[in-house]
């Protein structure tokens, strides 16, 4: 088995309020096929929201390995994790 997939969830105030908090449920109920293969990290604000005034519309931001997921939801992140696992197989 290759290295674990690193899931970095931004917990800056903007991302957290916009729904990153809900994505943290990956820590408790990740689907069985990926649960053992992920490492979840709380990331401080990465300033991705600061580019444009209304850029927070694109949050929450999550990195799955080096892939950025914008407007991240639990579902989007899970799909991206599966793609990453497939890549490393």
């Amino acid at each position: 088995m290759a290295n674990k997939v690193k899931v970095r969830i931004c917990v800056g105030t903007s991302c957290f309020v916009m729904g990153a908090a809900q994505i943290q449920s990956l820590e408790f109920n990740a689907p069985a096929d990926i649960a053992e293969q992920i490492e979840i990290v709380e990331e401080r604000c990465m300033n991705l929201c600061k580019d444009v005034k209304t850029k927070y519309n694109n949050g929450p931001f999550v990195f799955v390995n080096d892939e950025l997921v914008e407007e991240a939801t639990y579902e989007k992140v899970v799909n991206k994790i599966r793609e990453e696992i497939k890549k490393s197989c």
Partner: protein
Amino acid sequence: MLIPKNNANLMRTKILIKLAESYLQDKFAQADRIPLELRPKDMQSSRCCIYKDRAVLKYRCMAGLGHCPEEEQDELITLKEYGEQALERKEAPKNKLSVIDIACSACVKSQYVITDVCRGCFAQPCRLNCPKEAISIIKGRAHIDPDKCVNCGKCFEVCPYHSVVKIPVPCEEACPVGAITKDESGKEHIDTEKCISCGKCLASCPFGAIVERSQMIDVMREIKETDKHVVAMLAPAISGQFPGSLNALVGALKKFGFSDVIEVAVGADITTQKEAAEFVERMEDGKPFMTTSCCPAYFRAAQVHIPEIKPFVSDTKTPMYYTAELVKKEAPDCVAVFVGPCLAKRAEAEWDPNVDYVLTFEELGAMLVAAGINVDECEEIPFNKISHVQGRQFPVTGGVAGAVASLVGDKFDIRPEKIDGLTKENIKLLKRYATKGGENNMLEVMCCEGGCVSGPGCIALSKKAARAVDAYAQTGEVLKEDTKIG
């Protein structure tokens, strides 16, 4: 544990952020763009078309501005005008949960349906057990006549093939006190006499059709447009709601414009002392048991729906009450704003002369996001008044009873029981306690399962929040009977 917030709930957060931003930018001049921004033309609609989505969003914005969609007089009033009206009102909008009728999908009333799994058996227990003769066999399959069905569920129980399914109406299922029911057209309505403002219907509606009136705009106006001293009173469930330290959160709130920030855990310490003393007194008087009183949804449920338990409810006031009392004693002219996870606190605040406004964590979050404030990067400012372990434990189930028990000590044999979640079943349990008694003498009642950390106004996951609450409590000093507070 499932993902607690669905799209409908997350959309509410976005609406609040947009409204806060609209106020801060140009006092709602562009507010009518919000529904369009949230549902742009190229986006897939979640209802019949994007135009209906936008119409629903407009009503949800109205609620975010503190108006009640049910009281709409003229459909042509714009969000800009609603925003301006919100800025003119001098009093907090009255707490009220209401249904946006065009958003309510009028979930099917008949709650039992026979599926294809039905084998059209010879025994036909469904038909025989139906008390209303609502079931007939058509083309070898059982059918329920919805006009005759009374939703007793007998067919569901007796079918040997489990072919009968129950289709619940989520809001009715969630409401512990039967306050939400259908009208002739199948749309839901909330009976304000029965409603305990717990917010369970709001959290459960898959269509986001239930809204409550926000006071966010009123608080922002007090901060930005008056010279008043606006004090934020942070409920003990605040731990874990905003990543970054609590002291940085104080810095963030001051940066937004609050004059002062105090922990409601300080008031919870007072509640602990008084409630422990009250418990011992009641037990020595020979009373069979006492229940807590700090959950406002339970307190109201006791008044309206479980009158038999009223004599056993503690007379001690809530942490919010004592905190606001401290705040107003020091600065009588200040504006006291409670910030918490709870919708029922809005109802409680209407009875409390010292509390001016109530915000949820979600609303506070929307304000910070709109103002571009990241808590983690703010200056760390300590609290002036220090709370103790016990007061900090309040928002997790078992915390209040544990706090009281710690001060009762060996003065009386205290046997606490957690009533974790005000469900229909637990209301029956409380009624049984009131009439027949039970084996325990201290009942802690939390309307939200898991405690306040699971409240409808929370941002963080309850599990993570509960850990943060616990970690913060461990850093505090232990409260004693004679500890001087404030």
